[in-house]
């Protein structure tokens, strides 16, 4: 038997008080695709970054092709034939594709000869793997799919034999993802070894040869893909049996709460993000918006939440309870939206929904800090605020239930519970909710989903944006798909499936329902 392409022995890594990797060992056969799954924060990226020399392990050994190899930095990893495509691309945005590929792999001190050699070599690689890119395009001018190709080309240009891909399909349309896997297949057939981190069970089951599961910094199991099932993997991930279905009764939609007509949004760079869409959300229903990230859903949510009043251009009409909701000028900011009883759980809780350095009790007032209930005269009524926080923490089972703890010291799931508690407890007429369970463990997912459904059953309108098709399908009553700023079609949630929605997300228009 040939030596494993990669062998990690007893890798540990701590970030300050956080133990990201604990005594991890793993062995990967050459010429295989090895999947790694695990919840957010389980330590997958950390482990791969250690293999790539981006982080240095506190303890442990790395063996490449049977040889003990020190990887103190990425230079050493590249020399050992390892290439990595990070979750967040590491490209210089105002450089051209060619410059990005050459960066760090130049032939000599002079730039021009390196660039012209790279241009030739790139052509050969492109043809070999059908990875077409324009070498003279600037990174900030090309789409994410293209950017990912540049990252892969970067690795191949450096003659990588081992390729690490960290959540490569999160930003791709299903079609683009399929193409990626064709390329990976081809690389495997050439004897290259691929490590694939993904959250998508389907990708694991379809494309990998073996799979490792991580939980809370530890490697819980490594199994042959052919010998396992999604249910088993899910249980290994979370540590208990999980129920992925949402319990809910059929919706009883009332009169329209939110009516959007011909809404267009142009961002401050002059790019049109939302292109004349029409939507309606009724009382007592959940409208889910599906789509690959970056197709205008975020902008739609932000516009409705009053976060774009001072940027770019907005046109069209939005009505709440039948009366016009101003899009610019007075009454168009997020504060006015709150006064109009619109709640908003933002997509990015850490950057937007919370002030990470504020105490939990301060965050519970965030956005509502001028509410008379939280103020006494000129000053804020901190005592009332803390009492309110304690109540909400108990109701939403926030752990630990300490109002004094800074938001950054709660785990992702509990941070999300604080935001959701704040918004839902205001009892809004319309709730805007983006990526409600991103980075949240299964237990908390169940709880948050349940709260959303309860709000719906109380006769409120809910607009849900999520990139997780599964979540959309199980939570929504109706589903609209956004692609390139437009609505590709609308379906009743129980009359469609992932396949149909996936096609629409890739820009293939569905027939009117």
């Amino acid at each position: 038997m040939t030596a494993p392409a990669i062998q990690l022995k007893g890798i540990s890594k701590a970030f300050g008080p956080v133990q990201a990797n604990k005594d991890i060992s793993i062995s990967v056969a050459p010429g295989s695709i090895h999947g790694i799954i695990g919840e957010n924060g389980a330590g997958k990226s950390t482990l791969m970054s250690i293999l790539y020399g981006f982080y240095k392990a506190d303890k442990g050994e790395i063996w490449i092709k049977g040889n003990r190899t020190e990887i103190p930095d990425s230079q050493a990893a590249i020399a050992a034939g390892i290439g990595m495509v990070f979750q967040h691309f590491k490209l210089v945005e105002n450089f051209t594709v060619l410059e990005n590929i050459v960066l760090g792999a130049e032939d000599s001190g002079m730039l021009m000869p390196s660039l012209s050699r790279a241009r030739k070599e790139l052509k050969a690689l492109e043809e070999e793997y059908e990875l077409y890119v324009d070498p003279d395009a600037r990174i900030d001018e090309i789409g994410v799919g293209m950017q990912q190709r540049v990252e892969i080309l970067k690795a191949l240009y450096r003659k990588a034999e081992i390729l690490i891909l960290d959540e490569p399909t999160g930003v791709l349309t299903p079609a683009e993802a399929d193409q990626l896997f064709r390329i990976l297949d081809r690389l495997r057939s050439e004897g290259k070894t691929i490590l694939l981190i993904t959250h998508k069970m389907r990708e694991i089951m379809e494309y990998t040869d073996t799979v490792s599961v991580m939980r809370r910094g530890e490697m819980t199991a490594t199994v042959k893909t052919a010998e396992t099932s999604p249910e088993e993997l899910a249980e290994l991930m979370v540590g208990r049996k999980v129920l992925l279905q949402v319990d809910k009764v059929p919706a009883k939609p009332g009169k329209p709460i939110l009516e959007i007509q011909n809404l267009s949004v142009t961002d401050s760079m002059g790019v049109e993000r939302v292109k004349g869409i029409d939507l309606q959300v009724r009382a007592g229903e959940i409208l889910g918006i599906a789509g690959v990230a970056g197709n205008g859903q975020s902008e739609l949510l932000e516009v409705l939440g009053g976060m774009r009043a001072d940027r770019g251009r907005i046109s069209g009409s939005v009505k709440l309870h039948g009366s016009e909701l101003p899009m610019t000028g007075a009454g168009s900011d997020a504060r006015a939206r709150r006064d109009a009883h619109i709640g908003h759980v933002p997509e990015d809780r850490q950057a937007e929904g919370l002030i990470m350095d504020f105490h939990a009790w301060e965050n519970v007032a965030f956005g509502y800090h001028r509410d008379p209930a939280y103020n006494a005269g000129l000053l804020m009524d901190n005592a009332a605020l803390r009492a309110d926080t304690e109540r909400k923490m108990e109701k939403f089972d926030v752990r630990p239930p300490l109002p004094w703890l800074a938001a950054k010291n709660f785990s992702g799931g509990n941070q999300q519970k604080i935001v959701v508690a704040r918004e839902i407890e205001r009892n809004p007429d319309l709730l805007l909710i983006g990526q409600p369970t991103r980075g949240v463990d299964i237990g908390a997912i169940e709880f948050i989903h349940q709260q959303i459904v309860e709000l719906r059953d109380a006769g409120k309108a809910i607009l849900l944006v999520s990139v997780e098709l599964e979540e959309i399908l199980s939570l929504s009553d109706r589903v609209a798909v956004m692609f390139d700023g437009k609505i590709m079609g609308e379906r009743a949630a129980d009359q469609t499936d992932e396949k149909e929605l996936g096609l629409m997300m890739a820009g293939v228009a569905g027939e009117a329902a």
Partner: protein
Amino acid sequence: MDKMPKWADVVLIPVISILLAALISALVILAIGENPVEALNLMVNGALGSTYGWGYTLYYATNFMFTGLAVAVAAHAGLFNIGGEGQAMLGGLGVALFCLYLPLPHWTIALVVAAVGAGLFGAAWAAIPAYLQAKRGSHIVITTIMFNFIAFSVLNYMLVEVLKPQGAMDPASAKFPAATHLPSLHDILAPIGIEFSKSAPANVTLFVALAACVFVWALIWRTPLGYEIRALGKSEPATRYAGISSVRIIMITMLISGALCGLMAINNVMGEAERLVLNATEGAGFIGIAVALMGRNHPVGVFLAAILFGFLYQGGAELALWSSIPTELIVVIQALVILFTGALDNMVRMPIEKLFLAFRKEKA
């Protein structure tokens, strides 16, 4: 979990930083061939050894409280106001114009009116950099530095061409009317039987500065506006989500910051010189940076740091009088304090964090 207890962050680290700065200052004194112990002796005696010394120490500290608070308020909104010097200069101009051209019958009224003038002018001088930052994203650090230079030219012009009395040689305004003269600490303390040096310039403005400390504390930690200021300082995208207008907060914060710097003028211009001279601010605007850094942007910290710098300033002046060490030594010490408490903060912090982490692991 936080990496270490709060007391370590707010007390231990600044204290170690100060000690490092003091150590290197001592080395500098040695290097220029003087005796650091003697120098320290001179400074302590001169600054704290008599009510005269205290009078000066407190006078300087009053200046630094205003500028330190100003830098701190701006810092809470994530703004680095290096323009304190210019704002204080303009505050002085405001005080001079109000004191010279308004009929002010009594010092109490004069104090209020001059404070308004000082605050208005200081705020006005901060307004343009604030607006450019808020609306156009021009970096406030550079614009406020530029406004310091421009303020100097404005003051220069006003003093030379407008305020200088006929026939006078140096660029300074006329003496303010006697009714505007503020009572010194001597005047205030004498009636209650406390002997305080008559010739030291500390005056009633000290109490205004203390009131400003309380005001800033309440503003930042107790009002919704302060909440919004701190929110902006911590996360700009979050304020957009919460409906807090960053333009509005930047403007308001910088106006408050500028007004605080301007208020310094009632101490140095109205309380001490009783006329406007060209270089009245003496770098207090810059010292505010060090004071705020050391005081961790908290009014109590600012108060203590201001006293420390008041001591350094007065001690430095005494050094210049009684030894051959130039007063520039104080500039060096100030630089070292800024360096260690501000820029090299992590140099002290990282080992201490490790220490606490190791300690905690042991206990666990």
